[in-house]
């Protein structure tokens, strides 16, 4: 468990961070908490020549409101996100999801940006970002650009981020009055999700007026369950929600592995979607 030797850079500004990744080139890696990167290095599954540690970039850490957006710095830890009153009020799904990541130690080291940029198909926060139509702000040598969460993830451990770019912050649309639930099904408390369902709902007159639903572990990237969202609109009772949740597995391509078969995952997606939506709506 000894990594291959590498150069280490620790910039303190975003510009310096971009300069450092440009200098590192194709064989550079960003360290954004290290909860996934360090195991990969120690198992020698990756051997970067340079590791750029973003832990010193204070501008990338913190939570604030900017107009209609809740802005979370990429280097904000899961523990900070989970505990933030601002996040709980403006994007409760994000706080609830962050609280389920790994274990206490992981949540105090791991970061929102690290989780999104790592793009683990079993990652929880990418799903929340896709469910809420978050916007990701990326800095590169040519300046900044924004990417919609649904366009950010391109496959297993794969995103649109270029080797010379740094994910700086994540902007979640403020959704006051929405309620949320993240149903994570994992075999042990510290294990990755077999399937996870992120749901946020807006209620009106005792009905679910709108819903946002996305799935973890049902494909190479988070899957937005649009058919469920459409079917659940107007639902006023659990039976309707369960029926709507039956669409959750549609158009998904879940893996079959030691954690569960594709068939089982599709089944779980429906069961958990019903629980997530009904839970978010206060029906159960």
């Amino acid at each position: 468990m000894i990594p291959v030797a590498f150069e280490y850079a620790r910039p303190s500004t975003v510009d310096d961070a971009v300069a450092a990744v440009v200098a590192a080139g194709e064989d550079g890696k960003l360290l954004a908490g290290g909860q996934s990167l360090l195991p990969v290095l120690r198992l020698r599954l990756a051997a970067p020549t340079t590791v750029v540690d973003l832990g010193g970039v204070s501008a990338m850490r913190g939570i604030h409101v900017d107009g209609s957006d809740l802005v979370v710095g990429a280097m904000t830890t899961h523990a900070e996100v989970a505990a933030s009153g601002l996040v709980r009020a403006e994007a409760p799904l994000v706080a609830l999801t962050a609280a389920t990541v790994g274990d206490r130690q992981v949540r105090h080291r791991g970061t929102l940006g690290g989780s999104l940029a790592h793009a683990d198909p079993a990652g929880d926060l990418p799903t929340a970002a896709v469910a809420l139509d978050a916007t990701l702000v990326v800095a590169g040598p040519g300046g900044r650009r924004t990417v919609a969460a649904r366009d950010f993830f391109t496959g297993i451990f794969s995103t649109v981020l270029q080797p010379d770019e740094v994910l700086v912050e994540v902007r979640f649309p403020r959704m006051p009055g929405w309620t949320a639930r993240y149903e994570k099904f994992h075999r042990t408390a510290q294990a990755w999700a077999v399937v996870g369902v992120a749901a946020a709902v807006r209620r009106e007159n005792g009905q679910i007026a709108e819903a946002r639903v996305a799935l973890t572990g049902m494909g190479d990237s988070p899957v937005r369950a649009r058919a469920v969202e459409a079917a659940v609109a107007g639902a006023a009772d659990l039976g309707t929600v369960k029926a709507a949740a039956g669409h959750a597995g549609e158009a998904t391509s879940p893996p079959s592995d030691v954690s569960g078969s594709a068939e089982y995952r599709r089944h779980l997606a429906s069961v958990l979607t019903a629980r997530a939506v009904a839970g978010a709506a206060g029906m159960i």
Partner: protein
Amino acid sequence: MTATIGETEVGQRRLRKEDARLITGRTQWTDNIRLPGMVHLAILRSPYAHARINSVDTSAARSRPNVIAVYSGAELDNQGVLVNAWPVTEDLLAPTYFPVALTEVRHVGEPVAVVVARDAASATDALEAIEVDYEPLPVVLDMEAALAPGSPLVHSEIGSNKAFTWIFDSAAAGTGGDVSQAPADITVTRRYVQQRLIPAFMEPRSVVVDPSGGEWTMYSATQIPHVLRFLLSATTGTPEHKIRVIAPDVGGGFGGKLAATPEEWIAFAVSTKVNRPVKYTETRSESLLSAHHGRDMIQDITVTATRDGIVTGLSVKLTANLGAYLALVGGGVPLLGAFMYNAIYKFPAYRFECNGVFTNTTKTDAYRGAGRPEATYAIERIMDELAIEVGVDPMEIRRRNWIRHEEFPFTTVCGLSYDSGNYEAATDKALQILGYDELRAEQNARRAANDPVQLGIGISTYTEMCGLAPSRLLGQLRYGAGGWESVTIRMLATGKVEVISGSTPHGQGHDTAWSQIVSDQLGIPFEDITVLHGDTRVAAKGMDTYGSRSLAVGGVAMVMACEKVRDKAKLVAAHLLECSPNDLEFTDGKFRVRGNPEAALGMAEISGAVFVAHNLPDGMEPSLDSEATYDPGNFSFPHGTHLCAVDVDTETGRVSIRKYVAVDDVGKVINPLIVEGQVHGGVAQGVAQALYEEAVYDESGNLITGSFAEYLLPSAADLPSIVSDRTETPAPGHPLGVKGVGEAGTIASTPAVVNAIVDALRPRGVNDVPMPCTPERVWRAANGGVA
């Protein structure tokens, strides 16, 4: 062993005196040891489950920075061989087992070459420069496939994948009837599969060898320093008195460090080659891959019974996956189970057959319970199935068949003599704590309501044979060593005591429990006692730690040694008090003259008198030190009743343990805190087998569950709050009355959990769920196989 000693320490909930150093890590873990001039090893391991080694080119690796030497198996010509210490049958097929493979690799992870470098990172870096030309050979992973005609052979030179067939038949042994003649109103036959498990001790294995001065000192994270010293000497030709083995503090073992490992032999040989101290510490990945695995057996079991459920015969056909090589006691593990399938019951006829099979997988050997959890699982599962056939409550079927309290001592169908037990008392207590009747009522209500979350109640009434073991019996079973244990007491001048324990702990709490016993035995304060162990030059004799034996066997040696000290101290006291020894009694830790309580001497004063030796009886040797070695006359038989209530979510298959009650009878308890800790940890491991753990290979023989991301260990967050209670039936004829507790929780809990799951789903036509009972398997079972 007749003196009655007052107890002030024994029975106390003493916090463990070793915990501060263990918990903080400020101690001699093997990997903490740094010796002058020490160099580091890294091991290249086979990526193939079976391949011929055409060549190993180590030349490029030798020129890497900081590399001192690189050895292939052929180049490490002093490596010796690894031996099997339990050749279970006379015609056992025992293939030669080299620490570093010479011409063929037979499982993924088998050592192929070793790098020696000035630092561990350089050694690891150089591994990639070793060129190995492998020629892949056919792989066989499945036990039954390996036994089929025409199967690829793991060891072509021995001509078969079947290492041995071992049979016990009560008719042939004269201990019971013939199963083929047993009345069979009812016959129940089942197949249970004990999945492969990985011991997953907390401290990875680590070894340091210092070859200075024509002697070899090995530090190893091992359970068995004494056995190791003997084996190193026997297999390398190094004289035994030139070898010193030290097990410093060891961070868990669970049987996984009851081993003579390739890595130890490699370090020993390399230290000689380079004539410098060497260190090897495995990574967690290497540990999961190549430290021996456990369980991995197929159990075909049949019980016959009368119409009212009285069992008339039991047959077990066991197929045991040995892995690619015979591990230290690998073939013997099923034998430890063979005598336990009849469990707490009065079965009149029994036949057991075990076939040991080689496959291209990591070797298997002892894992907590070693044979006995497997046996207990199979019998406790099938007793539930018999209850269904008979139409009675699963508790009732047990009552009809178990040995009643008044029937002890009882000779079983295996010929073992159970000295004591009270199954009724433990069971009644467990039922009452659980609230069995109330839960059954709730279960019925939930069934009637077709609740998606069903309730199940699981029962496990277990016993185990521990206190390993009577040496004569081990000889009859062809085990390669004895089962005695040794203790030395050193009385220091100031009245402090060093207790030198032959059995060496790897987490059990010897320092504390031994101090409590010796404190009472000698009237010395708990704090004034130090327990030494694990160094063959300090504790010269020992048979080490496994099979719940330390207290049950070593504890007796300790009492015997203390008695010798007391006997001699009494003579000194009588001399100093100018009375006859017959006028003295030992009470409250002092020798007192009967009728004159003011005239008294404590052990500290006597120790001082013996140290200066100014005024001792004529001719007396000026030493109070003593040594005792005890060979048990019988096993000990702890027992108990574990009950488990589970909620089974039939929509997802998730099993949640709602309540877990363990009532154990481990005989007399020295330290309740330690006993409860052992029960909690044991239950956790047994629950883990039932629900979480499984080592899985892909079809090429790669270990899929090669990290803790895939090999799931439950944490405290996944486990219930365990209610641990006891009944106490002291072991008769044992000076401490103790029975052993190290494996009880593991043995009892697995069938309790699975019985509960099956019980919950019984109305849905379920009569088994294979282990581990993953959510998917439970969901499939609950929904008619496939949803």
